[in-house]
């Protein structure tokens, strides 16, 4: 197992190098002089020259890159142009809010998605399967910003049940996490269903039935365990998607978070902030995927030998 984990970790290294290269290049890919873009109205020749030296833009690219990686390793992602605070501080300040939202959404998506998938796969009546899958299709096809607005309209404005604004406690988290979870739940339901159906066709299930095991036992003990393996991977993949979806949900529900920070920064052409957010988001996503990979190895020992 140790070797397996090590191998996975080593495989991530080139991706990390690529990610840092890409975020590093971001500043240099912006049309026009990045310093002028960042300084805006303060871009006097003198200021530009001073900042160019301060940012080290007068040095060769590879030196700048190594410097960038070195600073990043020490937790220095530069300072936001807009707020004049260290980018990492800003990100960490809003991160808990995004984490809460994403975690709530993962929970909702998993519970709703997996149960819907199981319901569809085992339904005695085809109509249940059909309706569940129709709902899944709607879930995948509805833009988050539309479902968010519909949820607000229904639960906050018409029924007056739930608050729309950010705040403490569980209540303000319900609508945004449901809106964010909907498409992920739909994808999970789909995967759970097809994975279960596939598993049910396998020989061992037939044998189990032949041996006279009761329905429920077969289902829970054998089938579910095997069928959920691909589902775990998909949950892992959804985490990244949910993080990205938070951009829209945070904006609709006026919640603080990385997503809203990103949109504000883009609007303000705050390049260091955008760079920092991109790097942090990618790191989190890569880490989550790595964890899922390793977890997968634990659940399904066959993986190790591939």
């Amino acid at each position: 197992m140790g070797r397996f984990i090590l191998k996975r970790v080593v495989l991530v290294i080139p991706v990390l190098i690529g990610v840092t290269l890409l975020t590093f290049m971001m500043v240099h890919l912006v049309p026009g002089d990045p310093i002028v873009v960042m300084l805006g109205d303060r871009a006097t020749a003198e200021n530009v020259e001073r900042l160019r030296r301060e940012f080290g833009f007068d040095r060769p690219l590879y030196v700048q890159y190594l410097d960038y990686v070195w600073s990043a390793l020490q937790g220095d992602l530069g300072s936001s142009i807009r707020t004049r605070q260290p980018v990492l501080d800003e990100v960490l300040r809003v991160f808990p809010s995004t984490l809460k939202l994403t975690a709530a959404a993962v929970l909702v998506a998993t519970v709703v998605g997996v149960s819907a998938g199981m319901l569809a796969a085992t339904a005695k009546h085809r109509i249940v399967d059909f309706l569940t899958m129709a709902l899944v299709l709607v879930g995948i096809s509805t833009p988050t910003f539309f479902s968010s607005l519909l949820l607000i309209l229904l639960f906050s404005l018409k029924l007056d049940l739930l608050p729309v604004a950010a705040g403490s406690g569980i209540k303000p988290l319900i609508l945004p996490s449901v809106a964010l979870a909907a498409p992920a739940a739909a994808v999970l339901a789909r995967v759970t269903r097809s994975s279960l159906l596939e598993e049910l066709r396998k020989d061992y299930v037939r044998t189990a039935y032949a041996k006279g095991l009761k329905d429920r036992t077969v289902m829970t003990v054998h089938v579910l365990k095997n069928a959920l393996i691909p589902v775990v991977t998909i949950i892992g993949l959804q985490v990244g998607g949910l993080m990205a979806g938070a951009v829209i949900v945070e904006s609709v529900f006026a919640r603080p978070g990385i997503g809203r920070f990103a949109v504000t920064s883009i609007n303000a052409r705050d390049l260091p902030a955008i760079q920092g957010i991109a790097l942090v988001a990618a790191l989190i996503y890569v880490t989550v995927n790595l964890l899922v990979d390793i977890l997968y190895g634990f659940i399904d020992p066959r993986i190790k030998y591939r």
Partner: protein
Amino acid sequence: MSLRDSISGTSLRSLMGARLTRRSMLVRAGALGAGMALAAPLLAACGGDDDDDAPTATSAPAAPTATTGGAAEPTATTGGAAEPTATTGSVAQATPTIAPPPPTPTPGGATAEVGGTWRLVLGQEPDTLDAHKTGAYVSGVVHRYIGDTLIHKSPQGEILPALAESYEVTEDGLTWTFILKDGIKFHDGAVCDANAVKACYDRALDPEIKSAVTIGQLGPIESITALDDKTIEFKHTTSNAVFFDNMAHPVCSVLNAEAAAAAGDAYGRNPVLTGPWKFVSWEAGVEIVMERNPDYAWSPQYAGHEGPPYIQDLIIKIFPETATAVTALEAGEVDQIEINQADIQRIKDTGKYETIEFFRPGATFMEFNVSRPPFDDINIRKAFNHIFDREAILDAALEGYGRLLYSVLPQSIWGWWPGSVDYAYKMDHDKALEYFAASGWTKEGDKIVKDGQQFKCTFTTISGNQAQSNGSQVIQAQLRSFGIEMEIKTTDFTTVISDLKAGNYEVSYIGYAYASPDIVFIWFHSSNIGTGLTLSQNNSPELDALIDESRSNPDLDRRLELYMEIQKWITDNAIHVPLYEASTTYGLQPRIAGHLVHPDGHLHLLDAYITDL
């Protein structure tokens, strides 16, 4: 003293750099009469203090409200008896100034008790709470609660001593002396004496601090001296008729410079001042929490009672979406909001909330860049002024909650020229075509053309602003039906301002929130081209001379005349198309008494108390 002064004066002068030389034009020998000390409060009473040095997208998240008739007085509904008062005697010449309503009558005879929480909503998050580094209106609002200035503007609009007990000004108007009250302490317990005040303003002048607005408010300072523990003296190099107004601005709040130095960059999120409420915490994007300062014993002269405020906890909730704020008010999650236009009527109809409508001093227009084509041509600018149906723009942008603007100054600022209503350009397409023809443009078919090319221009607007989004599209549609193609370019506020300052635009949708007529200096003086807010890039010595005199002449009648001439000049030269003045409507939970709308636009809460404790 003179030696010390001259030393610090010299060094300060060199620190101030260009700013000083520019302001030195303001010298008007012998123009300063004996009435200087008297004049200042009068001016202030006429709406002197400013809200925000940066131009704000007026009415942005703020939701102004109906008045159609155009009466300037704010009204307090639900309070019942609250009638708008006429302007006070001391400001007789201040024609259309905002007159704040008297305190709301106590419902059910509740008495003021200490305690409770008041949650008010701001549409924007402050950039920083370092008074020296901000110019944002919202930071100013927070500073009104956690800070004090040497002198304050009262809710009645007069400027009165606050941290200062009294003040004096020399005959030549160059030296201002403030005597501090006894026993003032910062929130961290440090003593706030004359040296601390000096340290605060020295910090603002320090080029390392890169003060955003404060340095400009202080003006052409030669020296700041603590004469003794209680006495602080400001010496100016030239007379400065607006210094008094400016010192009451929230960016001039007295902060603990020592604490600021110790905190470094983190100070902006841990401000230490002297105000009635103490800063407690700031959760990014969510809220700023303040608590009652029990030691507050230096309430300003105009306060209804001595000592600390009644409200225990003051929480500012940050809601970028105005629509969300209304929902939160109705759900009882917050106590005070600016109501989104679309919701005003419905909220009033519920009868459950106190609503207060008023005009926060400010104005919005289409500003031309007169330094480059096509709007360097006065004929084109005049033609544009004749094209629009401005009522339709007002209606779409603000759902009617505002009134038409006729010149650079709105009715809510002292100095407004009533004659501008008749003098302003009227919608007249024939005249517009004549002006176009004078510059060689003719109407062919349904297009305005010259050499086979249709007239085109780009309109720079600010993102995330419903009023601008609606207004600009109506403007675009009106131009299209006249035969002109206008592209709308929308970017965030910061980018727009830097483009506008640099003259990198053709015509823009911009406005200001500022309570003093001195906005004409900020907005039109040639010395403010580039770095300042003379966004039109207009450079006219004739206009500069009028503005310079308006800033230094202590004679109020003469100043009023000058402001009229300035407004006339700007209209004659068609520097902009005046659009509208937005009104604001506050919605409050009816569990508060003793509050007032301050002329600057925030709610004055020092004497307010919660009635359902």
